[in-house]
């Protein structure tokens, strides 16, 4: 008989085989004296191990009393720690709120700018006290003094407008994303520590 199933005999002995694997092992065992002998020796080994008695230990009650005497103060959650814990979970909520606020602000700003460019909001911009259409201040001033002109003036005005709006938006979004990723990383590290580190890993 070839293709012995010795690598599965331990699992078979321990009742850990199921389904087709179990059936395969049972069929093989019925026909193979080599594997039968191997299974017999594994059973004997298991029997031998169980013959070694455990010594009489201290009774559970007395042992518990001894442990109780040695118990240090547990690190229970104090009110301060609870507040910190709540604060910790509020961080992602706050970041989400900030993200929504920023996006809403820029969206409203874009809508107002577009409406203003189309001439719908002249009275509103007067009422608000600023010119929504002109977002390039420094380049306009430099143009008035003749420092910039032509294409350079246009480029400077575009760059300034970009820096005032898009760059600010990108910076804020990236900052929020980085803060959120940092929070996720710390949360993951805490989870790992709770799962493994505190169990006295050898």
């Amino acid at each position, binding site marked *: 008989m070839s293709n012995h199933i010795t690598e599965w005999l331990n699992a078979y002995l321990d009742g*850990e085989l199921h389904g087709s694997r179990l059936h395969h092992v049972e069929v093989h065992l019925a026909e193979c004296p080599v594997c039968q002998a191997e299974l017999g020796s594994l059973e004997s080994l298991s029997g031998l191990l169980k013959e070694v008695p455990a010594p009489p230990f201290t009774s559970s009650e007395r042992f518990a009393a001894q442990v109780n005497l*040695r118990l240090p103060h547990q690190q229970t959650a104090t009110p301060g720690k609870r507040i910190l814990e709540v604060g910790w979970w509020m961080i992602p909520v706050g970041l989400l709120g900030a993200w929504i606020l920023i996006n809403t602000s820029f969206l409203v700003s874009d809508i107002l700018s577009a409406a203003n460019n189309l001439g719908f909001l002249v009275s509103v911009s007067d009422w608000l006290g600023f010119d929504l259409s002109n977002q390039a201040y420094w380049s306009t001033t430099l143009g008035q003094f003749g420092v910039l002109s032509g294409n350079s003036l246009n480029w400077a005005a575009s760059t300034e407008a970009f820096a005032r709006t898009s760059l600010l938006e990108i910076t804020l979004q990236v900052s929020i994303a980085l803060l959120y990723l940092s929070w996720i990383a710390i949360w993951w590290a805490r989870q790992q520590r709770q799962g493994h580190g505190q169990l006295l890993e050898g």
Partner: protein
Amino acid sequence: MTFPSINETELVTRAQNGERNAFSELVCIHAQGVLNVIYRMCGDTQVAEDAAQETFIQAWLHLSSYRPQTSLRNWLYRIAVNAATDILRKEKRILPNALEDLQLNDPQPGPEALYSEGEQARVIQKAVLSLPHACRAVLVLREYEGLSYHEIADALGIPVGTVMSRLNYARKLLKDKLEQKLFLQVEAKNV
């Protein structure tokens, strides 16, 4: 997979809130299991009792990190195995170089000697203690505590496949070390 009973879950919750009496009840429930695991790992009653106490102290200190939906017994066994492994590393004297010592001490033990109850237990225990720590932990949890492969995997934080391979290896080593005794036992069965 063994889940904690309702009573045990309640005790854990109370202990997590700092109730020492609730924790003492948990110690009572799991003391013998933890003592047995550590004793089978290190082979010394006094050391096992000290390490078991240390196990429960560590459990108490880190009880907030225990998740009640998992098995408390497996969680304690994990701490116990690590405590035993630490002790074995620190106190080499507990760990005999079993087989070599065994063969030197008992070059040709006769059948009577092998079947002398105390002697037999000593020889088997020495053989178990000679196993590598990782294999020994798996063998102890399976043979003496009757944990399933999944429970062992859960307790030791290793995959089930690793449990199987370590158990196979441990039993193979033990069979080689105890070959003569196994032969005599099989013979005795056949008579």
